[in-house]
């Protein structure tokens, strides 16, 4: 048991239980819905999850530092629309340039968030609530309430979400899904193996100690926002490729989905703990549950927010209760300072009893 405790952290138990939960959901709905196990179900879920997962990766970077970014939905919407109009106007823009443009616009928006929060010391929730509205208004104003239409885009754009890179049985893997998985893996490696990533954890875990340890906290936090913006920009491009027709309300409310994925995936909303894998699992769990419920109960898309809200509450509450219990359990075992210290303590205690 103790060796198990040594190599498995309470957080990993949470991720394992998510995998189990996803499995249970799939089995349950497989029995309820006819034709559930099909390539089409997989593609619909995977296509949605891919976009949310990329945004959730960026959100995780920010949340690890005990901050939050509520403007991601507007950034996704704006970049999707902006890149869409550029592609419609200049049909000769190639794929790499389009992606770079999306990432650049997103990073710039993230930079604005980061500077105001890290250097201006404005609370993150207020700043990004403000830019959530600002970036959306910018989109409305820029678009003149027109929409991007799929037929005006170069042919390769909608192709991106249709072509099949490789297949596993009947499951087809589209480029967007592969890209999302790549982002999750890359940023998981970043937060595990780069000093920068570890500092994100440190700042969220104990800001005061981070200050005393001499970390350039503002710069690290700002960079997290820039990365979050850049990833949202990338997600904006993926959004464009998936839907083609972009209106001014594109990706509205995606911040809620991203935060839900992150929190359900076990990233602590108070910073300091969580993984990219967890955030991905969170996104998969939420999307699978949502789409399956919609098919099963024939309910409308408007129920989505209620479901998201409920899942966030459940996740945070279970964090507070279950994870804290697990942590104390873990902390109690195997962390004593010395074997003879334990003995001395026992002796001391028995003396008190006597």
């Amino acid at each position, binding site marked *: 048991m103790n060796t198990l405790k040594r190599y498995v952290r309470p957080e990993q138990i949470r991720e394992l239980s998510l995998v189990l939960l996803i499995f249970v959901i799939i089995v349950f709905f497989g029995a309820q819905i006819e034709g559930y196990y099909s390539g089409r179900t997989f593609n619909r879920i995977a296509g949605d999850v891919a976009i949310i997962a990329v945004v959730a990766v960026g959100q995780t970077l920010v949340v690890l530092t005990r901050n939050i970014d509520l403007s991601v939905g507007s950034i996704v919407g704006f970049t999707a629309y902006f890149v869409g109009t550029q592609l419609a106007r200049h049909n000769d823009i190639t794929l790499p340039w389009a992606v770079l443009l999306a990432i650049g616009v997103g990073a710039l928006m993230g930079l604005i968030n980061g500077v105001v929060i890290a250097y201006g010391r404005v609370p993150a929730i207020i700043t990004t609530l403000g830019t959530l509205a600002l970036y959306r208004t910018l989109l409305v104003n820029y678009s003149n309430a027109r929409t991007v239409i799929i037929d005006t885009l170069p042919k390769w754009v909608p192709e991106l979400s249709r072509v099949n890179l490789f297949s596993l049985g009947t499951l087809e893997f589209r480029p967007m899904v592969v890209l999302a998985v790549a982002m999750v893996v890359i940023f998981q490696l970043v937060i595990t193996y*780069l000093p920068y990533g570890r500092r994100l954890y*440190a700042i969220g875990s*104990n800001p*005061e100690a981070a200050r*005393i340890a001499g970390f350039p906290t503002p710069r690290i936090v700002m960079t997290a926002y820039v990365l979050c913006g850049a990833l949202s920009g990338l997600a904006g491009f993926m959004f464009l490729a998936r839907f083609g027709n972009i209106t001014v309300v594109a990706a509205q409310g995606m911040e809620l989905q991203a935060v839900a994925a992150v929190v359900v995936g076990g990233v602590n909303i108070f910073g300091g703990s969580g993984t990219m894998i967890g955030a991905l699992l969170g996104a998969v769990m939420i999307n699978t549950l949502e789409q399956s419920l919609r098919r099963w109960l024939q309910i409308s898309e408007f129920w989505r927010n209620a479901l998201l809200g409920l899942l966030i509450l459940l996740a945070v509450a279970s964090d507070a209760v279950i994870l804290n219990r697990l*942590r104390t359990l873990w*902390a109690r075992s195997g*962390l004593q*300072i010395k074997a003879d210290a334990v003995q001395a*303590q026992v002796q001391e205690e028995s003396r008190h009893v006597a």
Partner: protein
Amino acid sequence: MPGDAKKPVLEIRHISKRFDTTQALDAVSLDIYPGEIHALLGENGAGKSTLIKIMTGVHSPDQGEILLDGKPIRIGNTVEAQAYGIAAIYQEPMIFPDLTVAENIFISHRDQGAILRWGKMYRAAEAILGQLDVHLDVRQPARGLTLAAQQAVEIAKAISLKARVLIMDEPTASLSAHEVTQLFKLAQALRDQGVAIVFISHRMEEVFEIADRVTVLRDGKFISSKLRGQVTPEGAIRDMVGRQVEEFFAKGQTQRGELLLSVRGLGKEGVFSEVSFEVYRGEVLGFAGLVGSRRTDVGLALFGVEPADSGEILLNGKVERMRCPDQALRLGIAYVSEDRRALGLTMPMSIVANISLPMLREYLSGLGLIKRSAEIAAAEQFRQRLSIRAPSVHVEVARLSGGNQQKVMLSKWLNARPQLLILDEPTRGIDVGAKAEVHHMINDLAAQGLGIILISSDLPEVLAMSDRILVMREGRPMGVFTRGEATQEKILTAAMGQNSGAGGRV
């Protein structure tokens, strides 16, 4: 043992530092030798903390210089201090609860390379902890480590940074006896490896157990620095005291009235225990003790902020259970906090609003609205009575001086017409004139028949103002002295637990 031929690793030369009205350090000079445990002694406010903060780059000195290996250095921040090999561990260790033990040890290293090698880091962490003979699982998150283990991690961090000067600021304050022994073993092992250790503790017996050299500061001035063999606990205490009482307003004799408050065996798990005392009407009971003596916690328990979990509180002979401040207030107990900013006053609000706040229900009209005129009249009355210097009672409290803020705070609680007034550090951070006024006021209030508990770290103040003095040490009462028998030496001796059989560690 330190040889005299050794050169000091760190020399502190004529360091001065001033905060507003207080001269925290006044031309202090100190030599710190390698392979030596150097204890710093002094009362509260003697300047130990300021000196440490200057050595670790938290504050910069107004005057004077610091020499490392004979060369002058400027320490701009904690990172630079670490680069010079100066590290500090505090009573509350600064750890990252979500990171592993190994990461906590190596978090400040700048030379880990571009990619973190976990295996290597775990092995290095194990090697350092092994060298200290500490057995911790380096893969575990630091969350849940005992305080002693957290300190061990901090010490390991200092070693990994090749610290040459390790400052330990009251490291033993919250450790058990066994853990203290462990910590001392660590400190001695480091000393034998040539590290200079600056050790700060309020426990005399610890200082004389471990220190090679004992330096005493008093009122920001350097008093003495002697090898352990040349100094006795009594001598050190004499050096620490030596201040004159005459600058204080002495309390006049008032008639002791009937018994107001009686506390029996009051305790709170892990905080204080077995606290018993009485307060009579017209009497000032002083609470003396050093930092960590838990005097404030007893005050907070009486006021119901942090209720006690054992013992009895009798007010006017009736047993009362204090559960919340609201209840305490209704029973006529008021608590004037030591922390004006955090607990006492609402800074952006006016004097009027602050004073009427606890008693708002008395200023309501029939419709349940606040009667402004009554509120203002009450505030005006206090402004005259306590001579609060402000252009009007509508001024924001934040714009007043510390002394006047203190008076507003007193007004606020006096407005509640208490029978028992608990004053926690009422004169901290205010100038001499305002101090004398506060002392006058305490005297007047006692003469009016209030019972007063005066918690103060200012020993001469406690001696001058109190009829009786309760001395506390680490959550336990060490005895009650009457005005006649109390001297600074006696009180400090009791507060430090020296030569008294009653004291024991928690």
